[in-house]
């Protein structure tokens, strides 16, 4: 099937006083039209920078895209200039950020910000105004008419995230990038927001790239998962397969550290050690120091291998690619 978004061997680096920090170091994945790809990983593994790289919004001047290809709708969008990218941002590819508290401009009304999202891409102001009201209704704000004239500080976190969703969907994008959309919210609100996003995704038939560290959310909404560790994808598979049969020791560790019914009363597993320094990645396997299966081969860097069933794992273990069932 034709992919909507295809990221190939993306490297996004940062110049710092400690040297070059390779935050994203050879990441590849794709997103099919209408489907959801989740990128999972712990803080600092490069998943947010991957998302920002797609829109070419990596924090300047330190950050830059060293190499790689990002194809969107068949076109290599890394070739686009900053000005050309603007036509894509918000219209074809929209993004929701983690912090609904600070992602809205505190000095402007909700209506103003929602309309702006549309007038930027050439919609007339009155049309934008009407559509803004529809959108607020659609995302479930209690009093959409009043909300148009309200300022961000007058809304709760959940309401603000609904507004952010409305803004992101204002131009009916083909791809939605959601960077930890529920991390800053209460648990009860998290579920509401996720189901709203999923509902709207089906309604608009758009694809989604979901950045998260919450495996619970992944199992509910994602079709495919890429697990990132230390700037690389260590494992990628359809969600079902990954949850039933994680292959990479890191992924296995992640699942083992979740509370589970069959391990009731036992202490939760933790992964010992810390993520290596991004300015100075180890030459071998980046997970080796924390891995329970560490062996001699781990001193050379493993490649992302593809099994016969289409699973991708970056590990030297023979069992990683075996068909177990």
């Amino acid at each position, binding site marked *: 099937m034709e992919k909507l978004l295809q990221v190939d061997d993306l490297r996004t680096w940062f110049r710092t006083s400690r040297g070059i920090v390779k935050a994203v170091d050879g990441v590849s994945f794709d997103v099919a039209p209408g489907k959801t790809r989740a990128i999972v990983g712990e803080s600092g593994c490069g998943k947010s920078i991957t998302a920002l790289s797609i*829109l070419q919004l990596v924090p300047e*001047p330190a950050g830059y895209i060293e190499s790689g290809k990002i194809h969107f709708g068949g076109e290599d969008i890394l070739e686009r200039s900053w000005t050309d*990218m603007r036509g894509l*941002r918000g219209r074809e590819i929209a993004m929701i950020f983690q912090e609904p508290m600070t*992602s809205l*401009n505190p000095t*402007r009304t909700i209506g103003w910000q929602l309309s702006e999202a549309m007038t*930027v891409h050439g919609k007339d102001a009155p049309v934008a105004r009407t559509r803004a009201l529809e959108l607020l209704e659609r995302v479930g704000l209690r009093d959409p008419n009043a909300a148009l004239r309200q300022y961000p*500080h007058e809304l709760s976190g959940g309401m603000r995230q609904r507004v952010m969703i409305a803004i992101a969907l204002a131009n009916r994008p083909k791809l939605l990038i959601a960077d930890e959309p529920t991390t800053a919210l209460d648990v009860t609100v998290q579920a509401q927001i996720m189901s709203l996003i999923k509902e709207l995704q089906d309604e608009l038939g758009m694809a989604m790239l979901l950045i998260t560290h919450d495996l619970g959310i992944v199992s509910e909404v994602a079709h495919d998962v890429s697990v990132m560790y230390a700037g690389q994808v260590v494992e990628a598979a359809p969600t079902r397969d990954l949850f039933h049969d994680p292959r990479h020791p890191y992924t296995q560790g992640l699942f083992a550290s979740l509370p589970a019914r069959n391990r009731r009363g036992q202490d939760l597993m933790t992964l010992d050690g810390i993520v290596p320094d991004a300015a100075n990645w180890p030459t071998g396997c980046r997970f080796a120091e924390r891995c329970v299966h560490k062996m001699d081969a781990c001193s050379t860097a493993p490649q992302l291998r593809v099994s016969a069933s289409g699973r991708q794992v970056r590990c030297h273990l023979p069992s990683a690619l075996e068909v177990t069932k």
Partner: protein
Amino acid sequence: MNPNLLHQLYNLSPVALVGIAIFIFLRARQTPLWGEAFRRLARNPSARTAMAVIGIYATIGLADSVGWYDAATQERRTVIDAIFERKPERTYSAPLAEMTTGEAKPQKIREKHILGTDSIGADVFYRTLKGVRTAFQIGGMTVLIVTPLALLLGLTAGYYGKWRDDVITYIYTVLSSVPGILLQIAMVLVLGKGIIQICLALGITRWVGLCRMVRGETIKHREREYVRSAKALGVTDMVILVRHILPNLLPVVIISTTLGFSNLVLSEAILSYLGVGVPDNVGSWGNMIDAARDELARDPVIWWNLTAATGAITGLALSLNLFGDALRDAVDPRLRS
């Protein structure tokens, strides 16, 4: 053109000023930030006092701007002239005194002078009142030069960074390494004496502080999430700067402009004291202080001249500072959140 008509047209300027002020106030009150700031100000007694004092000064200044053409003297006479001008005496006289001071044979004086008269016998109270308008003109016009300049350069340097930042930072670092007062004196000597010349001289040397602050604030806001999400929506840099970042800087800019205003009033006095101030035919507290330089050494002491001028300056500068501080307190809670 009929001189009378010209002077009538001239009277429109204070009317326009008051109109603009009211318009801005009403518009600002509708926004939650300023609406609440105004309510907090109204509850603060020292802010109320300061505003009342500034209001009195402003009324005097505006009354001194409303006038007509006087055929007899062929000069413009303002409302203040008509009410407060007194016939000149021969020389000094103490407040409310009946005889002149400092003459071998003291003379009987013709009118009561509540603040006495100066060396050429002019009424000190009247001269003090005439200084109000000049103070506001210099403060106001200089602010109109300083604020746009500082905003333009500060926003550009802070947002775009790189070479633009280098150039602008270089310019203001060089400028601030030369003592401002020397630059101001040099500029007035080149441009000549006059209110507009002084405003230019002050404006060109005084934008550095505000510019530095705007640059810093812009750098801070540039990294904020709301700017990033605006970028993710495809909003242009220009629109982000003017319609997203600028409104967030306004409270800080307005507060520092208010405090800067009082500083400018003081600067006028200092320049006039140094002899490079406003022309002699314009009322000026600085000129009064300059003239009063030797008077404290006389016997009996001539104190009223100096006291009136410094009192007027202190009153205005103090109220402006109090108001600026109160404004900061009224706006700050929202800035922090």
